[in-house]
């Protein structure tokens, strides 16, 4: 018998702010936070556009974290989001003796601490092999992202680093859900983190996949991705455990679905068949009725391939009802935060369930007439909402969907 798993806390650091309320108000406003990037640069790319995270000085983080030269930014923002999530859950950040074996963490990332490699490359041009120091491998080890948080908080349960590119946030939540549901842990932190990286900016620019202005998911004039920085962490807890301590239950994680396109290294399957399998698995393994889904937090990157595949998948699974389900993407508001994106999407779903309001897609002015969907535009929309579907897809074809429902 699987145990029920609930969300009792959320923490997010994004360009929209460093508080949950800041994030929610920014999402509801329908404005974009994508703009000129000031603290990060790439060779040959004169003007970078993205949703940049400026970490406030009030956070207990190194003063230089906002500078281009700071190399461990991902690790630090993930830790800050984890602390924020615990505070939001009304839990101690560092209980006496640590959290122990009943609590763990699954963190997702697309690029991890890629800036450590960037740092090495620059030193290599001057020093060659002498530039490789003894600490390099440890700094570039992505598990350090999760281990750094776990060590700081005293977690003793499973501490995993999950890399499924831009579906990492949802798959991290999926493994954490399983750990709580099967009794391995009573409490898990889960989410994702990524910062701006040279590899992704330059690579996407070479593929002409970067938006020339600001990404416009589902718009007929969409022209590509806008990157963002961020970290999103959720506290997942076993229902009875949460009730025993009098926690405020924000939402329930009902289950998840996975699939892989196995179609192309970078392009998603155009007909959305992979997404279809992931959504259907999420519904089938949880016994949830498709009719309960009242909001879709779309992957919505603003590329032609993604938007088409995703809409086709929703129409395949939900049939005629698809065009009536409020659907939006938060990536045009806070950028595509890669490994954090699905985790922040899950937080948006939690907030939508709590406030019975769904966020709009910023910059969506002229929905592609081919789609005919109910895209939420301009501002938040009040709805009666019992369950949400949080979609994600990653480079290489990994898809993951998470089902969340109103607090029991």
């Amino acid at each position, binding site marked *: 018998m699987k145990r029920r798993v609930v969300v009792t806390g959320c923490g997010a650091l994004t360009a929209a702010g460093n508080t949950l309320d800041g994030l929610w108000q920014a999402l509801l406003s329908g404005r974009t936070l994508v703009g000129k990037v000031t603290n990060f640069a*790439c060779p*040959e790319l004169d003007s970078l556009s993205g949703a940049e995270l400026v970490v406030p000085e009030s956070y207990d983080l190194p003063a230089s974290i906002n500078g281009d030269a700071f190399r461990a930014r991902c690790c630090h923002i993930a830790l800050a989001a984890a602390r924020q999530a615990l505070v939001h859950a009304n839990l101690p950040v560092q209980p006496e003796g640590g*959290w*122990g*074996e*009943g*609590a*763990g963490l699954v963190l997702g990332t*697309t*690029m*991890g601490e*890629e800036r450590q490699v960037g740092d*090495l*490359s620059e030193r*290599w*041009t001057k020093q060659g092999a002498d530039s*490789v*120091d*003894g*600490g390099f*491998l440890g700094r570039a*080890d*992505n*598990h*350090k992202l999760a*281990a750094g948080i*776990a*060590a700081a908080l005293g977690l*003793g*349960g*499973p*501490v*995993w*680093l*999950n*890399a499924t*590119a831009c579906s990492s946030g949802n798959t991290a939540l999926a*493994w954490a859900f399983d750990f709580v549901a099967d*009794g*391995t*842990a009573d*409490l898990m932190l889960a989410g994702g983190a990524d910062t701006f990286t*040279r*590899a992704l900016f330059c*690579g996407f620019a*070479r593929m002409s996949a970067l938006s020339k202005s600001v990404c416009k998911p589902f718009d007929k004039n969409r022209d590509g991705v806008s990157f963002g920085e961020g970290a999103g962490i959720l506290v997942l807890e076993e229902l009875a455990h949460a009730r025993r301590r009098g926690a405020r239950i924000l939402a329930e994680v009902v289950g998840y679905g*996975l*699939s*892989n396109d*196995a*179609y*192309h290294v*970078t392009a998603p399957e155009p007909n959305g068949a992979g997404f279809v*399998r992931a959504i259907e*698995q999420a519904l089938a*393994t949880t016994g949830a009725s498709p009719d309960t889904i009242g909001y879709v937090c779309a992957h919505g990157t603003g590329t032609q391939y993604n938007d088409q595949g995703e809409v086709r998948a929703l129409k395949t699974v939900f049939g005629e009802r698809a065009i009536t389900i409020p659907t939006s993407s938060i990536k045009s508001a806070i950028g595509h935060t890669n490994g954090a994106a699905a985790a922040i999407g899950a937080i948006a779903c939690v907030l939508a369930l709590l406030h019975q309001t769904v966020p709009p897609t910023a910059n969506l002015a002229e929905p592609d007439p081919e789609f005919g969907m109910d895209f939420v535009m301009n501002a938040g929309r009040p709805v009666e909402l019992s369950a949400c579907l949080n979609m994600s897809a*990653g*480079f290489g*074809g*990994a898809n993951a969907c998470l089902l969340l429902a109103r607090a029991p």
Partner: protein
Amino acid sequence: MSGQPTATATATAAVTGVGILTPLGDNLALVAEALAAGRSAVAPLATPVPCAAARFADFDATRYANVRGMRIYNRTTRLGICATRLALADAGLIDAGLPPEQLGVVMAGSFGHLDTLIEYDRSLVTNGPSRTNPALMPLAIPSAPGAVIALSFSAKACSITLAEGGASSLDGLGLGARLVRDGRAAAVVVVAAFGLFDELVLSLSRQGQLAPADGFRIFDERSQGMALGEAAVAFVLESPAHATARGRQPLAFVAGQASTFAAGTDGMETSLARACRQALAQAATEPADLGLVASGANGLPSTDGAEARALLAVLGAAAQKPAITAVKSALGETIDASGLLAAACALATMGGSPAPPIAGLERPALPGLRYLTRPEPVGGGPALVTATSQTGACSALVLARNAHAS
């Protein structure tokens, strides 16, 4: 907080195929025979720094798999593709009609992308983005080796990469077992590969972690560091029912797997012991039932000490019962692949191969365990496999010949 695993935390999954590539051989029988004969692949390495390592002399991926794009994939990815192909063939799943939607891949890959990322990023700096090979970028992200393997074998159920360093592949087996248990895939390939590259060797050498070329020993009072190695291993996992339905006799069962964390080496002993106890509880196996412990000890005194103390604590009165081996003594530290490599060795011993001795062990630093110094048949009892990462992840696995270990 209770945190006690339930008996069903990791349901039994059947191992129906193994692919293995090591400098000692490219099938399990060959590798087991070489290990039992006391052969070691660890040899002096001259570059980039003098050290001891177990490297492939002449790895040629095209001997094992014909996959589009192989030429541009890095060594780890090519190794992983080949091990996956061998495992699927061993499981009878090549051209066997398994729907692609029912095949998943779980890759243990903490460092598998890193040399490509270094090459790509260095090219951005030295040549500029417009003169950099655009095909490299998608291969430079951490999930790329696993994604390429899944793509190469049309695995459409899932493509997952776990990155817990040395604990990755045992964690991967635990995850793979969950995926088949929950019906998310009929078969999951859990694959791990580790190819050496200069920056990795240089960094570990300069951190003082590598043993001198002639001084590599595990569990020995003279241990002074590890020797790196190269390897790839893949296990095919299925639900017992699925294996039976297609007429496959499982090679073994994943009877239990548990993951824990320790902040720093000080807590490693306690944390690893917890993982072992949880995995044994899931498998309903008592320490005295174990035939073999395939330890993740690697020659670093801190790791070896934590492993030995954890095993002493877990085995208790049965400390002299199971034979203790450490395949890294012959195959080196293969980080991401190390857990699967040890599991493969355990699987071979359960199948009748003598358990391999710990190469070079003469004076155990911490007595009390039954360290193997010569090959020995250990019977078909369950095996405990341990693994840790330098970041604090601990993982333990119980493999058993029967679906219910005890």
